[in-house]
Each structure stands twice: as structure tokens, then as C-alpha cells.
């Protein structure tokens, strides 16, 4: 177990290193952020002065080395645009994104798995057909469009929910969270639903396929022969067997929800990390872009690890060290 963890750690560090190099070089190749940030009246001398102040006139390897030295000490650089440490900007926005991603995952799991089960148990009923048709829509509709549609219907036409932004927050252990206020929940509902839609459709399909497959297995037949009720069959024999692929996918999807909620955050002006990334890319704010991607890659690594550990819990045959 220990060697396994160490090996994983080394791999993760290598991934982070390579990624930071790629992003660094990529942003460097696009151009000079000062030109984008600076006001048009600025002359050449002013552009050169600002470029030098930010250290952007030095060779790429030197800039990277400075970044690398700082990163080892936990300093990921200061945002060019905001003059605030990049990591502060990201941490400041992280609660909003985590909240949104978790709420979306909760919706997707809470609705997706039961619907998938229903569809899998009675595959030829009208209910199953309706569920499957709707799940196709979940795949097919672009997030941007769904978000706007929800805003138009529920906010503009009906006036039930706010269009954009995050609601009032309360500090929980120093972290500002909006899920504990009525206003916060009202603001969260539309973006979380938008974000959940695709994952929900995915989970419906996955659960249905797993259920249909499991229902044909011998152990289900024997369980029925033993005289167990249908409910007990599903609960103690079908569910545990179909959960492993679902947990894998849900885990990975949670990572992508957190890292790439960008479109949803933009449509709903949700002050999360995704919106920060877009804004930073637009002005080539390299410290923030690099720090953001490092943070999300770390997050993916962490989630993968947790998923592996969860396997061991769900399936006693799997030992954490073996899962790769």
C-alpha cells in the first residue's frame, strides 16, 4: 500500500511538472499580456517598462525557473491583472465552484440512478421509454443553450428564480457558502440543474445498462428462487454489482464538473473558478492560468485516488494497491 501510494505521488508530481511546462510555454507563445492589459494611449516606452517590471522581457527558461523556485516554496506567482497572488484568487473562488459542482452531482446522482434503475427494471414500459428519450435530450442539448433557456423561462417569464450571480453566503468554518441560505439556494438551483443535466443523462444510461445486465445474471435468478422480494433483490444483489462502474464515472465526472463548469459559470455569472480561468486566458494572465491548471490537475489526481479507495470499500475482492 505504501509503495503504491509513493509511486502514485511520484507520477502525480511528474504530471504537474510537465503540465506547468506546457502551459507556461503555450501562454508565452501567444503573446505579451501587457499589450492586452495596458491602455491604448500607452507608448512603446511604457509597454517596455511594464513588461520589464513583470519580468516578461527575460528568456522563457529564466521565467520558468523563477516560477519553479517559487512554486516549490508554495508561491505560484502574482496575477498580472489583479496584483493578487494567483492562489488567493483561486482559493477565493473555489467554494463557489465546489458548491455548484457538488450540488450538480447531487442532482445527477439523486435523480439519475433511481431513474436508470426504473428504466432498467422495466425496459419496455412507457415510463422507461420516456426516461430514455429525455436522457437523449440531456446529451444532445448544449449547456449554453439550456442555461439560457432556463433563465428565460424561470427567471424572465415566470420570475421565480434569479437570473445570475451567487446568493447570500454564510461563513462555515471561515468558508463562505451559499447552500445554507434560502437566497443562496434560489441562486444555485438553475446553474446546478444546467450543469447536472449531462451527467444525469449519463448516469441514467449507465445505471440502466448495468441493471439490465445484472437482471439476467444467475445470482438474481437464484435470489428470486430463494423467495426474496423484488425489492430485496435489487437492494442487496443488483445495486452493489452495478455500483462500481457508476462510482468510477461519477468520480471522474465530478472532477470535470469542478474543473470545467466554465460554460455554466459564464452563462450564470457564477463567481467561480471557471469564470476566473476564462477571464485570465483572455488577458493571458499566466500566473493564474498555470496555478488554476495545477490546482485542477491535483484535484483530478486526488479524486482518482479516492475512487480507487472506494472500490476497495464497494468490492471486497479489490485491494487498493491493485487498482490502477
Amino acid at each position: 500500500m505504501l509503495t503504491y501510494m509513493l509511486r502514485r505521488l511520484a507520477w502525480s508530481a511528474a504530471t504537474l511538472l510537465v503540465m506547468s511546462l506546457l502551459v507556461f510555454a503555450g501562454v508565452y507563445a501567444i503573446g505579451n499580456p501587457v499589450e492586452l492589459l495596458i491602455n491604448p494611449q500607452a507608448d512603446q516606452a511604457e509597454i517596455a517598462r511594464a513588461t520589464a517590471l513583470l519580468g516578461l522581457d527575460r528568456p522563457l527558461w529564466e521565467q520558468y525557473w523563477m516560477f519553479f523556485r517559487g512554486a516549490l516554496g508554495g508561491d505560484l506567482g502574482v496575477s498580472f491583472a489583479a496584483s493578487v497572488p494567483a492562489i488567493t484568487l483561486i482559493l477565493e473562488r473555489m467554494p463557489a465552484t465546489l458548491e455548484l459542482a457538488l450540488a450538480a452531482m447531487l442532482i445527477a446522482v439523486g435523480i439519475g440512478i433511481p431513474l436508470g434503475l426504473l428504466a432498467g427494471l422495466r425496459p419496455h414500459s412507457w415510463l422507461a421509454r420516456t426516461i430514455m428519450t429525455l436522457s437523449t435530450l440531456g446529451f444532445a442539448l448544449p449547456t449554453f443553450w439550456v442555461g439560457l433557456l432556463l433563465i428565460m423561462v424561470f427567471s424572465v417569464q415566470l420570475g421565480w428564480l434569479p437570473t445570475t450571480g451567487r446568493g447570500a453566503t454564510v461563513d462555515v468554518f471561515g468558508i463562505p457558502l451559499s447552500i445554507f441560505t434560502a437566497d443562496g439556494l434560489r441562486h444555485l438551483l438553475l446553474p446546478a440543474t444546467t450543469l447536472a443535466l449531462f451527467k444525469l443523462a449519463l448516469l441514467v444510461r449507465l445505471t440502466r445498462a448495468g441493471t439490465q445486465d445484472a437482471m439476467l445474471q444467475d445470482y438474481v435468478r437464484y435470489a428470486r428462487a430463494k423467495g426474496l422480494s423484488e425489492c430485496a433483490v435489487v437492494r442487496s444483489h443488483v445495486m452493489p454489482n452495478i455500483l462500481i462502474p457508476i462510482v468510477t464515472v461519477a468520480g471522474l465526472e465530478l472532477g470535470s464538473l469542478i474543473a470545467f463548469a466554465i460554460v455554466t459559470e459564464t452563462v450564470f455569472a457564477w463567481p467561480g473558478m471557471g469564470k476566473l480561468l476564462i477571464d485570465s486566458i483572455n488577458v493571458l494572465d499566466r500566473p493564474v492560468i498555470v496555478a488554476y491548471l495545477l490546482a485542477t490537475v491535483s484535484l483530478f489526481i486526488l479524486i482518482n485516488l479516492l475512487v480507487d479507495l472506494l472500490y476497495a470499500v464497494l468490492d471486497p475482492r479489490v485491494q487498493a494497491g491493485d487498482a490502477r
Partner: protein
Amino acid sequence: MRYPRTMKHYPLTKHLRLLCAALSLFAAGAGAGAAELRIGLSGEVTSLDPQYLAAQPNLTVARHVFESLTDVDPQTRLIPGLAERWRAIDATTWEFNLRRGVKFHDGSPLTADDVAFSLARPLSIKGSPGGFAAYVRAVASTTVVDANTLRVKTKYPYGALPEDLNSILIVSKKHAQNAGPEDFDSGRALVGTGPYKFLRYQRGDRLELTRNEQWWGKAPAWDKVTLRILPADPSRTAALLSGELDVIEHVPSADIKNINKNNKLHVTQTTSWRTILLHLDQYRAQPPGVSDLNGKPLSANPFMDLRVRRAMSKAINRQAIAERVMEGLALPAANVVSPGVFGYSALKTEAHDPEGAKRLLAEAGYPNGFRVTLAGPNNRYINDEQVLQTVAQLLTRIGIQTRVEAAPMSAFLGRVRKEEISFALLGWGSFAADLSLRSLVATPNADKGYGAWNWGRYNNPKVEKLMEQALGSVDRSKRETLARDASAMAMQDLAFIPLHHQVVSWAMRANLAYVPRTDEFTFAHHFTPR
């Protein structure tokens, strides 16, 4: 609903709002009867330090809290700000007389010391991508004559100093001298003289302000102002339609028609100072992207021939672009600056004349045309990519086969600076024609600060001389005449091809009024109930 559309008409929702507010611990802010204005801004605010980054969104926010010596009216003409009056004592000395009785938000009086400090500060901010230093570049020294009088000595005769100083916001020396960016973002150092005081800031989301009851100007109508940051166009419109916002700036062109049909809302607009233009490479023998119809290099750079530039200008149907591509959000351009701006004169707009254009091309030795690549941004100006495509089609019709390369501003600008582009679209806004000419038309010269945005390296000593004389005149009427002549000469020679001046628009509730500003700024204190 937390924000009813109008409080008067929905007594029930008002109670609901209070209930919601109580439930959600949304405790602070305006009382139930207080007048609040909620504005949707289109740009990302990066810092609250008014001298950190000279970008329009940052300045919009800063100008609610801070003020400058000189102000500009909605038509971009200079008016007194914190300086009641100013005059040039001699060719290189300006005297500014401060308005008396002006107080900072902390109650301390504004003095010439604060002003001198503010003029020196842009050069001392560490790690700032800034831009503000360009506005004090001409300043040699400042002298505090007395508490209300400041003299500014310039390095050379410089008539545009009052314009430049409009961009330098005056901070309180006491609060700003040891403050870092975080002190501004937290509001601690956000102490100005302006009509609004800092209340709360949520980075990337909103800034809340309260009225400064001590302000010297006419008291604004709103006790509380919320500036929401909503860069996504459809979201901004939706927030207005739902009644969550009272005003939005930069109304998406596609939504204007619908908003005008809605009797609870209206749109107000004016010609912006932003001129959209095409730069042409006029310095390389073989500009990249330019070739004959078979892709082989041409023997000479066609853009250096005035007849070719004229033919290209004639090929463009500016009226059609303004009406159809821009959906009315543009005015065909013939000059460097838009109508009303200092140094503007009504030049004749080039008529759409494809036959004449073809004749000129043939005269110049390109009877069958040639090939060019037109580059430009696709996320910066109103409908920028569609404009590029239309121009390309119009040029192709007279034989100049044009390929479009549209990219995000960041990537596009990178390629321009690497000199990979020879025909490019740019937008430009300025307070004065001579200032525009200095950046766009004067031969690039790093020592003088000329031509930083003259991508085609157009070079015309006559235009440059007139422009220098204009900038060097402290006599404003003389300066304006010179600036007019210089612009007319540059346009006669097609230093660049002007396309259109953008139209800027605001949408708001029917019971609000705003005098639309040529400089595109959105100021809460200029909105009035009607």
C-alpha cells in the same frame, strides 16, 4: 423575489423581499424605502486600485469613488473636475486651481499635496501592467504653490496635458501612500472624493456603493448603487428583463429591437468615440499574406500605392455594414475621431463605388487584382468577425481576393507584434484627434512615444509636423485647428482605411434617464428618474 421590478406596484412582493432578506441573512444594504440603482457592467474589473490598470471596466468602477482634476462631459469635451480652472502660464507650465471645500470620504480636505502625490504614484506602483504612466509622461515636475494651487511643469510644450490628467484619479495621500492592491480591494484605501463611497466588494461579482453625502456636486438620486459584473451578453440582457437590474451597458445588438418593444424598458444610444479602422502594411516590400492570384509574391507592396488604398476604400460599402452587419450600431466613418470629439471635422465619407475601385486598381497595375489576408479580433468590438467577413467579400468583388483570419484579441495582438500581419482591423477611441494621430499615424518612435499602434508604419512627415504643432499648442483653439488639418491630411492620404464609428447603447427601466456618453462610461450618478 428579492428585487421587485418597481416597489410601488408590488406591495406584496416588497414584503416577500423583506422576508427573503431576513431568511437569507442578507442583512446589510439599503433600507426598504431607499432608492437603489443596480447596474450590469460588461467588463471584468481586475483591481480597485484606480491607478493599477488603465482598463475601461476598472476606470468605470474607480470613477464612482475617485475624481480627476479635469472632467469630460458626455460629448468628451473637457469640463472642470477637482480643478475649478486651469491655464497655461507659459508654453511648459500649467496652473491648476483646486475646487475649495472638497473633502475625502474620511472627512479630510483635498489638498494640492494629494494631487501631487497622485500624479507621481503611477510610476511607483510595483508590478503594475499599468498604462497610467503614459498620462504623466510629459510631466517634468509638480510644485505645490499653496493648499489649493498646483503647478505642473512639462518636459516640452504640451497642449494635451488637461486631457491626459483626466485619466489620473486623485487618491488620498494619507490612505494610499502605504497601501497595496489588497488594501484597495478590501476598501481600506478606497478613499476618494467622488459621489460614492465603498460599501462592499465581491471580486468578479459585484461592487456595492453608498452615496457620499459630503460630495461637492449635485447629489445623485441613488442612496445605494450595486455594480454587477456580467460580461456574458445574454446573461446581462436576461438580468435586465427579469427586473434584477435597472440598467445594463453595451446592449447586445441582437437584443436592442426586443428591448425597445418592451414598454417597461428603453434604450438610449450615441456615437461612441471608438473608430473601427483597417491598418495596411506600408513599410515592407513583401508584406506577409499578400501575393498575386497564383500565390506568388508581387514585385512591389501594393498598399504603398495610394491608388490601391483608395480603390480598397471605395470597394467598401460602409452604409451596408452600418445598417446590416452592425444592425444600426455604427456610423460610417471618414475621420480619425468621431463627431463631437476635439479635432473632428466633417470629412466626406468615401462612397461605395466598385467600378471606380476597379479602374483605380487597373491604373495601379493590378487589373486582375491580387490576394491578401485580413486579420482581426473576434471578441473585442461589436460584431467584429462579421465586419471582417463583409469587408473581405466586398474587396473580393473588385478582384482583391481576401481571406479572413479572425482570432481572440490575445492571439491576434500577439501575431501583430510578431509582425506576421499586414492588413488588420483595429478599434480606437480618444479624447482628441491629435492624440489619436500620435498613436495611430505618426511614424513609430519609441523615444518620442509615437506610433505605438501604427501597425502599418505609415510615414508622412507633413502630417506628423502638423500633429506635433497641435500637441505643442497650449492655445486650445489653435490646437484644434491644427489637429483638424492634420487629420484631414492623414485621411486624404488614407494612412489607414476608416470603416465606422461604433454606436454605444444602454438599456434601462422606462422610468430612468441617462445622457449617453461618447466615452462609453456608465456612471450611476448620471442616471436620473424620469
